[in-house]
């Protein structure tokens, strides 16, 4: 069987896997953005206890490998607490917890990167802290963090491959199955490498386009 015949034959399985990969990435990131913003708010709040809770979470996620987190949640926690969870959902949760921690740090650095004088100017006009944040600081911070956020999106997409170890039927898993069946490891893994590359390259280009749109003329710093 030639490379292309193998590709043709495997394509349905690949596409199905890619669908699961994208689905997991999408839902994980959706949760991660909300989680990241929430943790970021805890982190910059004036309450010491909230700061500590947030930084413990971030430190734990950053300080442990994603693979260990996946095993811990899917096998460890389910066994200890006696509940069942599909491997896809477990994957989404792990990826969301992981990306959420990194995103919270990205958001925080974005807010810190906005000049201190901006908050002072807004407050001096009589705006509340919340209004100053939402109308003055965040619009600027968002622009600053877009490249890093996009980067995290791509990392999370790649991290879905790790979730294959807990059995989620995403692209990596699909490739493992086909490679094991056909003994064509080189060809199969080359194929999915190309597929990953196409998707990620497209995402990168989209993010570059968004960046350009946001910085064009409007409010250059």
């Amino acid at each position, binding site marked *: 069987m030639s490379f292309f015949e193998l590709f043709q034959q495997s394509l349905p399985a690949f596409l199905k896997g890619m669908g699961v990969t994208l689905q997991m990435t999408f839902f994980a990131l959706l949760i991660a953005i909300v989680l990241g913003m929430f943790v970021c708010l805890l982190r910059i709040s004036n309450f010491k206890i909230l700061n500590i809770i947030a930084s413990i979470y971030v430190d734990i996620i950053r300080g442990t490998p994603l693979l260990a987190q996946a095993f811990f949640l899917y096998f460890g926690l389910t066994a200890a607490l006696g509940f069942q969870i599909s491997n896809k959902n477990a994957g989404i949760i792990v990826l969301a917890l992981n990306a959420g921690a990194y995103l919270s740090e990205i958001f925080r650095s974005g807010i810190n990167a906005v*000049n201190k*004088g*901006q908050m*002072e*100017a*807004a*407050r*001096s*006009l*009589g*705006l*509340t802290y919340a*209004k100053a944040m939402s*109308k*003055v600081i965040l*619009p*600027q911070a968002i*622009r600053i963090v877009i490249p890093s956020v996009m980067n995290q999106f791509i990392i999370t997409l790649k991290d879905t491959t790790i979730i294959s170890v807990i059995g989620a039927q995403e692209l990596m898993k699909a490739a493992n199955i086909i490679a094991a069946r056909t003994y064509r490891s080189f060809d199969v893994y080359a194929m999915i490498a190309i597929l990953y590359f196409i998707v990620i390259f497209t995402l990168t280009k989209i993010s570059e386009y968004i960046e350009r749109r946001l910085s064009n*003329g*409007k*409010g*250059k*710093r």
Partner: protein
Amino acid sequence: MEKVNVKNLHKYFDKLEVLKGIDLIIEEGEVVCLIGPSGSGKSTFLRCLNQLEETTLGEVIIDGQSLTNKNNNINKLRETIGMVFQQFNLFPHLTAAENIMLAPIQLKRMTKQEAARRAKELLEMVGLSEKYDEYPANLSGGQQQRVAIARALAMNPDIMLFDEPTSALDPEMVGEVLNVMKKLAKDGMTMVVVTHEMGFAREVADRVIFMDEGVIVEQGKPDQVFGNPQNERTQNFLNMVL
């Protein structure tokens, strides 16, 4: 009529005492210039007037309302106190007009149309009508500072605080900003100005206050302070800057 009343104001940054008990009454319509060497506490004092810097001890009363009383709504009180910063601090993601319109709209003082009309008026007043739709990045320093003054005026404050408004400007742009400030002073605005522009202080101020090491060392009419300073520290400072 008494506009500002500061009683026994102390400010610490950690253990460092930068304001060591300041008492000051400013009358309505008065233009007060604060001068003094850097590190004398004059900017900190100014920032205590609208509580951007929380005071450690003492009281700040503006229009009979205490800003240091935690029960008062500080945001409401700040609406009537305009502030202009050394670094302009315009909002870079908003146009000149949007900078001016933000607070009146957000604080529900005006509708969008009213705010736009007001922005137009204010930009005209500072001589920048044609910059209505420009972003701050496309304006010179002097223009940015004039927009910043217009922004501070948008809430119709009855007192304006200026924190070294010309210190970050190229020399040829200082004049245009000072002219706007002179116009304000002439219209009867109560103004507190931290400045190194001795010419401006001499010409426009009703009172000049010399601060050093966290206290008011000497104050009086400009002629008096500049022409015949009584305190040795004032004399030394003026000898260096004049």
